[in-house]
């Protein structure tokens, strides 16, 4: 069976201060139906830009090369109509639900808008479907909620509404961009449980964007680690923690304080995360890497298969968590 979402050598350029600069370089990975893939990286790593390229939300003036296929249709190159049909299958949930609803319109208006305007569903029918889907996401009193305004709902409840709204058009692909980062930790657990159930029950291909390697590891089958707009490692999530193959992934695992053990010093990564256009000519991580060789600064390593995943490092076999 072909992957529902397929990225092949995706490169995105933006005009920044008069110069054209690559913000993503040759990103390749795929997501099958019912599969969850985590996309992990620090600020400026390109994780949101990757999501935007899939969803068709790239900033004006962005140019691309490579391929983004949704259910086999290349949404970067096909005509508007085929592209639109393919993207109808893609739902997006954002980090801050309050920034993505109109505060002066009722929940019902917001939820039923797409059905009524784009799909020609009658108002009563659209409301009925909204109530049904709210029940599915664990909001039992949907009819009452439809008449409320966003400010009357807590952050966790509003995020459930956003998830419900994204499911109304029966998507096959769910792009979730830090959907629980703005929530309390107990609310995060509930919303994550909901997202996890939905993607299994509905067989959604999910791209889950987060800065939290632990969270990605817990809820995603595979995880892609980005740094400076490049794919550094793609691996089974379970292995990523126990046996990371890229020095950057290993450094991230070690830099996090451990909730289970008191430590006096953390293994901090020197320097700061680079954005794509600041990255050096060779390996983007080389200036901060404890495994770096002179050769790493000369030429950028290719992405190569290893252990059923992929890694962009010449010394991947030597990477150890304990040193």
């Amino acid at each position, binding site marked *: 069976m072909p992957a529902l979402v397929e990225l092949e050598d995706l490169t995105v350029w933006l005009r920044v201060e008069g110069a054209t600069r690559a913000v993503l370089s040759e990103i390749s990975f795929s997501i099958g139906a019912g599969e969850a893939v985590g996309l992990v990286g620090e600020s400026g790593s390109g994780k949101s830009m990757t999501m935007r390229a899939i969803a068709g939300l790239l900033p004006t003036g962005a140019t691309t090369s490579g391929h983004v296929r949704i259910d086999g249709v290349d949404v970067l190159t096909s005509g508007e109509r085929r592209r639109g049909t393919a993207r109808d299958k893609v739902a997006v949930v954002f980090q801050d639900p309050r920034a993505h609803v109109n505060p002066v319109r009722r929940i019902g208006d917001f939820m039923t808008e797409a059905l009524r305007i784009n799909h020609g569903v009658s108002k009563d029918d659209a409301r009925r479907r909204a109530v049904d889907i709210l029940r599915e996401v664990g909001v039992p009193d949907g009819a009452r909620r439809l008449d409320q305004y966003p400010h009357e709902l807590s*952050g966790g409840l509003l995020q459930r509404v956003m998830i419900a709204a994204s499911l109304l058009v029966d998507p096959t692909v769910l792009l979730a961009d830090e959907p629980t980062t703005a929530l309390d930790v*107990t609310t995060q657990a509930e919303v*994550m449980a909901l997202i996890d159930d939905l993607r299994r029950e509905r067989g959604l291909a999910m791209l889950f964007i987060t800065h939290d390697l*632990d969270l990605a590891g817990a809820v995603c089958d595979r995880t892609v680690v980005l740094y400076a707009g490049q794919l550094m490692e793609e691996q089974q999530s379970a292995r990523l923690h126990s046996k990371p193959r890229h020095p950057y992934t290993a450094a991230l695992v070690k830099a996090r304080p451990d*909730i289970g053990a008191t430590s006096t010093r953390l293994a901090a990564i020197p320097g700061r995360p680079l954005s794509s256009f600041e990255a050096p000519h060779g390996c983007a991580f080389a200036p901060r890497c404890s495994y770096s060789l002179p050769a790493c600064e000369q030429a950028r390593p290719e992405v190569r298969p290893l252990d059923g995943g992929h890694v962009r490092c010449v010394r991947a076999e030597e990477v150890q968590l304990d040193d």
Partner: protein
Amino acid sequence: MTEPLLQIDALRKVFGEHAAVDGVSFTVARGGSLAIVGESGSGKTTIARMLVGLERPTSGTITFAGQDRTTAARSQGERRTRAGEVQLVFQDPYTSLDPRQRVEDCIDEALRLFRGGTTGTRRARLEVLAELVGLDERQLRAFPRALSGGQRQRVAIARVLAAEPQLIVLDEAVAALDVSIQAQVLNLLADIRDATGVSYILISHDLAVVRHLTEEAIVMRNGVVVERGTTAAILDDPQEPYTQLLRDSVPRAGWRPQRRNS
């Protein structure tokens, strides 16, 4: 027994009908560190605001180094003395620095305000502080917009240290930072404590960060303390159901989130 640096007794703050903080008591020893753990609405930030004088308690007492801090300062001088003793580091280094002020002027302002001295002695002190938090000459001359989040938080910490406070309240001070930078700032905070003997109150929802930086902790919910003890005991063997729920909600290897209702 030595006198605690900070003693909070039956502290209460009511907004309208709602008690945001409802009978909270704790102490912080000199050189000690306390975590206040809780979710939104637990009252943890209201406590921080009362500690630095941004809010007045409805009832209860705040005693700092044997001095009552419950009532408002009576003079400009007293207000400044108090402000110098307890300093606050905010969560978001993108909104807590003046965008029109160079880093060196920002730190120098705090030195002038709290410590005085000549231009020369202040400059010497500025260089010591910059060295301590890891800011170089170029960054000292920069405006905040040229700095990353981690660098900005170093500036905020240097400015706080300029006052030579005895207590620093860290309100989610590392929450907005990238993992690799967060580790650097946490190490820096540990180093500063070793070097200066300053006490910390860390307000955080992040239990792993709490474990790294504090010895004692209180867990708050809806304005009251539900559990207290050493940080290690609270995290390794939580007694209260709410603390257990918080602990279980932290993603980790093998974690499967469970839907509690529906």
